[in-house]
């Protein structure tokens, strides 16, 4: 809908959803093009927003343990939502099912709604009046909430919010989010320094030292069980 409103044709709008299939990057590209930006600058902004999918892929590849030949096909579905669903599954089987079902249904729905949205954008008019622009952040918040189990995760989230908002006015689109990602290694470094010194003990140190460390053991154990299967 957004893209149809900013000068892209129906075909271009649908091609974006089919080929790019990562919402934030699509919106960024369309927004930059609508603002009269150079196409390559616009693509660079979209690229930076897509960098997080590489981090998701890192996490997913150990959970999914896909054969090498299947990975290029699975890659297109490595996005926020499939990662969140896959990470919350207890076994490798359910991780794979969760990833596939979420990926397939989102891919179909996303492209169908893009087509309907692009075709019907004029009929609906101003989508902002319907509050639909609040759906994006609400989805992210719902994905984020279950991850905030310990003080470590809350500290990371808090610092990331400050960096993401604080740097927004001064850095090019997409870059503040990447800088905000540095909150993760920064907090990890600080908690590691407070605990044991060697890198390999950081995980143990954090789990034992953090006040809410006990809560953190469940996902960590589940994840170790999953990755243990292929050893």
């Amino acid at each position, binding site marked *: 809908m957004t893209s149809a409103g900013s000068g892209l044709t129906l075909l*271009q709008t649908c091609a974006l959803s089919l080929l790019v299939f990562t919402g934030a990057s699509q919106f960024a590209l369309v927004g930059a093009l609508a603002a009269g930006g150079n196409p390559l600058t616009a693509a660079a902004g979209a690229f930076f927003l897509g960098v997080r999918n590489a981090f998701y892929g890192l996490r997913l*590849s150990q959970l999914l343990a896909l054969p090498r030949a299947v990975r290029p096909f699975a890659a297109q579905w490595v996005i926020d939502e499939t990662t969140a669903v896959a990470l919350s599954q207890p076994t490798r089987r359910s991780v794979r099912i969760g990833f596939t079902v979420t990926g397939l249904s989102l891919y179909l729905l996303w492209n169908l709604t893009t087509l309907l949205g692009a075709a019907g954008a004029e009929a609906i008019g101003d989508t902002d009046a319907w509050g639909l622009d*609040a*759906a994006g952040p609400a989805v992210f918040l719902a994905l984020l909430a279950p991850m905030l189990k310990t003080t470590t995760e809350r500290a990371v*989230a808090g610092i990331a919010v400050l*960096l*993401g*908002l604080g740097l927004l*006015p001064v850095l090019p689109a997409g870059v503040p989010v990447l800088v905000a990602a540095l909150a993760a290694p920064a907090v990890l470094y600080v908690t590691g320094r407070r605990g044991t010194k060697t890198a390999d003990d950081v995980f143990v140190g*954090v789990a034992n030292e953090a006040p809410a460390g006990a809560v953190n053991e469940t996902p960590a154990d589940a994840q170790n069980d999953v990755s243990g299967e292929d050893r």
Partner: protein
Amino acid sequence: MNIWIAIGATAVGCYALKLIGLLIPAGVLERPLVQRLAALLPVALLAALTAQQTFADGRVLVVDAKAAGLAAAAVALILRAPFLLVVAAAVVVTAGVRAMTG
């Protein structure tokens, strides 16, 4: 034509990013520090994206109806509402605030 170039570049770039993560060898990922980092990175990214999509209008920071919508979503999450209800709460409250302040 320019738009197609942008679409093509974005599609190739974004696909490559997704693939890279999956192709990095498993041995690297078995180090506890890397696992811990990989678990924390989505937290940082999602938090920053949530804040930006709520409070950013282009490159300017604003507090508008979306902030009320996000607050409603947060309340729904605290009450352990199902996913769709959380999103619906944000949409309805945002639309409501906009209609009232119009």
